[in-house]
């Protein structure tokens, strides 16, 4: 019997006042009972509209059916056939724009909580043992993967399953990319990220950390070392600044630096961890995406009393996931919408305020979104002592600068053939944020998958 309640079974969460003082996960996840109750809201549609919304085609009704029947192991197997990082995607996918958007239940009431169910299944299985080591016969063909973010991890995992000898080269001291250094603990526990990554390593993938491709070794040298194909999944790590006066004052951070210090270097646990991060009593975060929400909520947890989100468009244009905006509001983040910074004010080298101007939405621009324009005589000053800039990232130019024959777009992204993720350079493929610019975890994974398939075809047909 289907559960016809128009609303999702609600997921337990930490109380907003309590959680804005700790770094533990906000959403506590379903219990088995709650998950099964939610699973029964799925109508098992024959035409599976939801699946079309998932960039990696998770067989949604099938896994939900198994979950409802209580066969969690099988549900997990069905998911991981298509998606190697389900505990992560269940938490960070913008479901409302993907699988859940197309769910028939969304027509009258709320969609099935697909993401929550996916998360539940993954968490449930990973509670148990994850050190299943696979014994896949190797085919002796070496493939190099540049970058250990979701794109690289997925490509590496898929190729390892096919028997390739895959090595991931990662610039940082940890794998995971944005999953480790960007998205905060309270939204995506790092222990869990490590577990899902370990599952991929267990497929027989070799890891070389602390290697910067382009500096420590070039793409051409990788081929000389016997790698037959290279996948570039180096992400979009270069922070954009606003080019307004005062941006180099002490107290101004890029979101990347702020979040890296707090997450990857665990500055939230200073001085138990030696990396510091500075946070004022009043903080302005510029931008309206997931990165901005994460920075604002992190600032709050580090002790800021007033945290503003300053965004130049309106509420409905906020690019962040719905849930993050909702959580940020619950945590008393103040939204200064339709506002744009013009100058950061300093005294003795430190930030003391930020001048902004009000905006209104004008004619649609090339992207189809209404372009914000300045309102006359509307300047105002925010009284803040920390400014965090979260207005976007672009690909790091290092690899392109050191690789002849690799075509890039003007904005720095690598040019690829969409079906195969093949670049202009023979046997070099690319995917994830380095191709699309800052996008989503699941799109990065999708492109890693596509590339793995294309690499396999190329190397076996030759």
């Amino acid at each position, binding site marked *: 019997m289907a559960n016809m309640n128009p609303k999702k079974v609600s997921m337990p969460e930490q109380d907003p006042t309590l959680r804005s003082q700790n770094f533990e996960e906000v959403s506590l996840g379903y219990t088995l009972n709650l998950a099964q109750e939610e699973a029964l809201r799925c109508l098992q549609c024959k035409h599976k509209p939801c699946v079309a919304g998932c960039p990696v085609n998770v067989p949604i009704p099938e896994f939900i059916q198994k979950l409802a029947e209580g066969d969690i192991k099988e549900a997990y197997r069905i998911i991981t056939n298509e998606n190697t990082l389900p505990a992560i995607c269940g938490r960070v996918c913008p479901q409302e724009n993907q699988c859940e958007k197309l769910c028939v239940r969304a027509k009258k009431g709320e969609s099935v909580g697909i993401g929550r169910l996916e998360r539940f299944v993954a968490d449930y299985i990973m509670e148990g043992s994850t050190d299943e080591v696979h014994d896949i016969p190797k085919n002796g063909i070496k493939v190099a993967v540049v970058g250990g973010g979701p794109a690289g991890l997925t490509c590496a995992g898929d190729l390892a399953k096919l028997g390739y000898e895959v090595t991931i080269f990662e*610039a*940082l*001291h940890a794998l995971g990319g944005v999953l480790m250094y960007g998205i905060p603990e309270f939204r995506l526990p790092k222990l869990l990220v490590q577990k899902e990554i370990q599952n991929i390593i267990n497929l027989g993938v070799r890891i*070389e*950390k*602390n*290697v*910067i491709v382009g*500096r*420590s*070794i070039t793409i051409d040298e990788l081929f000389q070392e016997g790698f037959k194909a290279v996948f570039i999944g180096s992400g979009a*790590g*270069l*922070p954009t*600044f606003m080019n307004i006066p005062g*941006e*180099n004052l*002490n*107290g101004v*951070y*890029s979101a*990347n*630096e702020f979040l*890296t*210090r707090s997450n990857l*270097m*665990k500055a939230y646990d*200073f*001085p138990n*961890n*030696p*990396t*510091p991060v*500075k946070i004022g009593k009043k903080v302005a975060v510029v931008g309206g995406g997931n990165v901005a929400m994460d920075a604002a909520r992190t600032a709050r947890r580090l002790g800021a009393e007033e945290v503003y989100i300053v965004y130049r468009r309106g509420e409905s244009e906020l690019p962040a996931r719905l849930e993050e905006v909702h959580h940020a509001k619950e945590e008393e983040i103040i939204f200064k919408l339709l506002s744009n910074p013009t100058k950061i004010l300093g005294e003795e*080298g430190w930030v003391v305020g930020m001048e902004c101007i009000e905006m209104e939405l004008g004619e649609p621009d090339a992207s189809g979104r209404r372009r914000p324009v300045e309102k006359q005589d509307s300047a105002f000053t925010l009284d803040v002592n920390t400014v965090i800039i979260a207005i976007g990232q672009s690909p*790091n130019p*290092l690899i392109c600068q050191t690789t002849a024959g690799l075509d890039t777009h003007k904005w720095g992204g690598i040019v690829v053939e969409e079906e195969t993720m093949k670049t202009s350079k023979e046997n070099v493929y690319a995917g994830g944020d380095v191709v699309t610019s800052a996008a989503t975890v699941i799109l990065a994974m999708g492109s890693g998958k596509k590339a793995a398939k294309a690499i396999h075809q190329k190397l076996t047909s030759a």
Partner: protein
Amino acid sequence: MYEIISKKSLNSSVEWMEVHAPFVARKCESGQFIILRVDEDGERFPLTIADYDREKQTITIIYQIVGFSTQKLSQKQVGDFIHDFVGPLGRPADLKPHKRVLGIGGGVGAAPLYPQLKRLHELGASVDVILGGRSDEFVILEDELKAFCDHVYVATNDGSKGTKGFVTDILNELVSQGTIYDEIITIGPLIMMKVVCDITKDLGIPTSVSLNPVMVDGTGMCGGCRVTVGGKIKFACVDGPDFDGHLVDFEECMRRQSMYKEEEHLCKINLGG
């Protein structure tokens, strides 16, 4: 994990260490640096590649013990391992063949200066160097530099070795005697590099400096290392660390370097200038 192959102390606060790091040793050049983490959960911090041996796959670092992380590093012994060691980072120094070059190193700044001067010597330049330090003990690498430099001048604050005073006193004297340099390379405390640049700007001598802002990743990802050079924002870890000293906004560098003053336990970095 990166094994410590050999280690010695150069004075009471400066140590020399050779580390096995194949991926760094295969490609590094003068002027580049590494970032290391002594232990798991350690801080990432940069050190210049003072020397390298491609065959032995080793890198030499010379570091001053100034605070928490360099102290941690100092506790490691030969045979121990450094948890993370990444590089080579930064652009190689843009070393042009010159007739006559002067190096000016303050304190531990002599360490990053050494490989650049050695390389210039190999390229056929005659090289002079001025070393500065708080006292006799803090003048490092004098013998190593003497091996190929025409002149090695020393200035100490207390006069315990060489001229009593600052490196800039010697610089002023040399140029007033009419010694002509095609280029000056100065590395050391910011205030020292600034004063050197003020002097050489008036004299019209091209001067390169090596900036050492606080860094995290060293790959261009955080922007924490940003400096203003010629009115433009640069990331020292990818655009530098060497810059035209006459274009650097030193005031801003000094201010930004002090951002974590309260958090640093003890700081003796300004030693030597």
